């Protein structure tokens, strides 16, 4: 965890006071809606179909139990008793009243949470690996750098009115759980030939109407140069990014239109003029940030405690453990992923009661810490293995022990037409129907790892392009129809999915997905060959033939 100091707290409180004044001026009519819109967006407030939606940042996906309880409080006090975790380590509340927003923000500020820049044409929440700091084999904890970037990008005087939104993601693992290749700037911590730690910098990734995977702009940028290099990229973008067309305004389009070499050259020219300036990070400044991250005092525990050995006889516990528990860098500990994808439920939703229950469990079993992943699940990052059986029982009681992590029913979905004013089609009911179709865990385990991602419009909040199976809802002649892609992925081997055939109506989506899965089971070489690998080996064609033969 990063501990806010007085300086961080002051800024968040000043921001709340500023927003309170802005809301007051809007309600009195002093501010027009056009003037107010960008101000509220920069505090995470959208106007949705039914009400204002409020998006709160969870920087690099790390929460304390106290913070999670406060999110539960906001859900209960200002909303309808639940929240929705998003693909960018944010949480959204869907039924907030504008007049109450400043109070909700003030309640969150008390525990060091804010909603700054969770929307608007500025740098958004800096995201990272939800297993940062606990995953085995990590270069170092990427959250140190994510926090440096969070501070640097917060209320940046030059980059608060960019051509379009701007997203950072950072990973320090060989397995990319932060989806860095679909971000405007992706950062991969690694060591160069001299053994120094630095960043591979990728630029120009993003989904939406014109999806691109990020390209490497510089294979190695030293940590001390990170901020100056990032500033050079953003300055080039701020000046030359397109502002004439909202769909061409992201940095990915500038990178694409100039070509990565020309873009890199522009950045290099800018960087060389300021890299030795005030943004250079001294070691002691970095150390100061590092020193304010605190880590658990782990005990020396056995690799295989008796409690775990005994519990192995319970098939239900074993099903959960095999699915949801991952190795920790410290012996005797584990990472427990908490699925927010129950059968028939909207992906990523948690009730206030569940948040409170999980906060209590985090205090009891995870040193008071909770993580949020881009797959819209949560995790307890420091669970002693001996506590796993007790944790599982408690999770089960709270409805939080669905053992479907990474399986076909662990679906990513945007809010879609049920909430969102941009959506053309429903996402959540499609996801709910699919979780019912694949409710049988034996079947789901037989299928193995398979990610289904659903977006209700071209803006791709549900990351459909990078789903193993991607589902995109569009509107055609007043009807919701869905385009289906296969072969996408968001990890270190990121790829965009390919269209499998003509769009299908709402009522047929689940049937088509079932047919795709059946085709895979028939086509795979052996049970261990994952869906995504079968698609890679065979291409789309054999799937198309099987799925569309009778349609």
């Amino acid at each position, binding site marked *: 965890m990063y501990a806010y100091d007085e*300086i961080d707290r002051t800024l968040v409180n000043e921001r709340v006071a500023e927003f309170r004044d802005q809301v007051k001026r809007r309600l009195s009519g002093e501010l027009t809606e056009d003037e107010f819109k960008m101000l509220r967006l920069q505090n995470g407030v959208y106007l949705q179909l039914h009400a204002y939606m409020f998006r709160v940042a969870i920087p690099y996906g790390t929460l304390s139990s106290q913070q999670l309880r406060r999110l539960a409080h906001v859900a209960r006090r200002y909303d309808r008793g639940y929240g929705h975790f998003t693909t960018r380590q944010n949480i959204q509340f869907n039924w907030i009243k504008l007049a109450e927003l400043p109070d909700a923000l003030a309640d969150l500020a008390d525990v060091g949470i804010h909603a700054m820049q969770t929307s608007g044409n500025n740098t958004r929440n800096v995201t990272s690996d939800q297993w940062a700091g606990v995953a085995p084999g990590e270069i170092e904890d990427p959250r140190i750098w994510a926090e440096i970037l969070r*501070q*640097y990008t917060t209320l940046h005087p030059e980059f608060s009115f960019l051509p379009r939104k701007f997203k950072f993601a950072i990973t320090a693992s060989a397995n990319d759980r932060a989806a860095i290749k679909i971000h405007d700037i992706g950062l991969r911590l690694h060591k160069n030939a001299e053994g120094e730690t630095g960043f591979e910098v990728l630029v120009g990734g993003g989904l939406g109407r014109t999806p691109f995977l990020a390209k490497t702009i510089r294979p190695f940028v030293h940590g001390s140069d990170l901020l100056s290099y990032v500033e050079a990229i953003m300055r080039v973008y701020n000046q030359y990014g397109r502002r004439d067309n909202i769909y061409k305004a992201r940095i990915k389009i500038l990178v694409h239109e100039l070509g990565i070499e020309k873009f890199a050259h522009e950045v290099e020219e800018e960087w060389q003029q300021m890299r030795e300036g005030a943004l250079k990070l001294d070691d002691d400044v970095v150390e100061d940030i590092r020193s304010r991250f605190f880590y658990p005092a782990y005990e020396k525990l056995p690799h295989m405690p008796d409690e775990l050995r005994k519990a192995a006889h319970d098939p239900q516990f074993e099903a959960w453990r095999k699915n949801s528990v991952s190795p920790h860098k410290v012996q005797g500990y584990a990472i427990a992923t908490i699925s927010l994808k129950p059968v028939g439920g909207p992906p990523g939703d948690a009730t206030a009661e569940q948040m409170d229950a999980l906060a209590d469990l985090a205090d009891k079993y995870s040193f008071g810490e909770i993580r949020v992943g881009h797959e819209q699940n949560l995790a307890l990052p420091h669970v002693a293995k001996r506590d796993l059986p007790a944790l599982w029982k408690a999770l089960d009681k709270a409805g939080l022990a669905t053992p479907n992590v990474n399986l076909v029913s662990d679906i990513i979905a945007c809010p879609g037409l049920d909430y969102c004013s941009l959506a053309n089609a429903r996402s959540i009911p499609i996801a709910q129907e699919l979780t019912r179709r694949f409710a049988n865990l034996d079947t789901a385990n037989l299928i193995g790892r398979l990610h289904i991602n659903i977006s209700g419009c071209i803006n791709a909040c549900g990351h459909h392009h990078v789903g193993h199976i991607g589902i995109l809802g569009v509107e055609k002649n007043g009807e919701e129809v869905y385009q289906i892609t296969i072969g996408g992925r968001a990890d270190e081997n990121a790829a965009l999915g390919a269209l499998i055939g003509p769009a299908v109506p709402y009522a047929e989506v689940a049937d088509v997905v079932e047919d795709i899965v059946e085709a895979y089971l028939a086509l795979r070489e052996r049970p261990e060959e994952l869906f995504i690998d079968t698609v890679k080996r065979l291409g789309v064609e054999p799937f198309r033939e099987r799925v569309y033969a009778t349609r």
Partner: protein
Amino acid sequence: MPLVKGGKITDDVFVHVADGAALPDDGAILVPAARLLENPASVLDRKDKIGVIWPNNRDVDDLVPYLDRLAVVALVFPIFRDGRAYSQARLLRERFSYRGELRATGQVLRDQFVFMLRAGFDSFEVKKQSDAEAFAQTVKRYSVFYQPTGDGRLTALHRRMQLRHSESAGL
């Protein structure tokens, strides 16, 4: 449109010269960039103060040769959501060491005052009278700044280091 300068509403001594209009014989003038660039000598050859209105889609590199002759550079926010002039302002102040008046013009609103000050602007053609009147109050909204810019405000990172050093020195 009220002009805020030195933190207060003041009279604008500069006459805005429209495209194609004749230059007045004397007095301070503010001319469009194109006017300056097409015939620099005709604009710069006068005893009174000269300012230029520089568009946000033209590199400030082109302005650099004239900077030491200019009393005002006015950068443009056609709408407040178009942030290109923030980069231009920082380049003029921090890279090209421009020390004259740097004026924000266009849709200049209260909620961007702090950003503009931090980027190096020191005068503001404010769109609304009420915003201009609220200037002094508004710029006090923030006391914490995370980024180093040319305005010299101490960043959070450096304040922490100072605090740390004064603690370890037993002060």
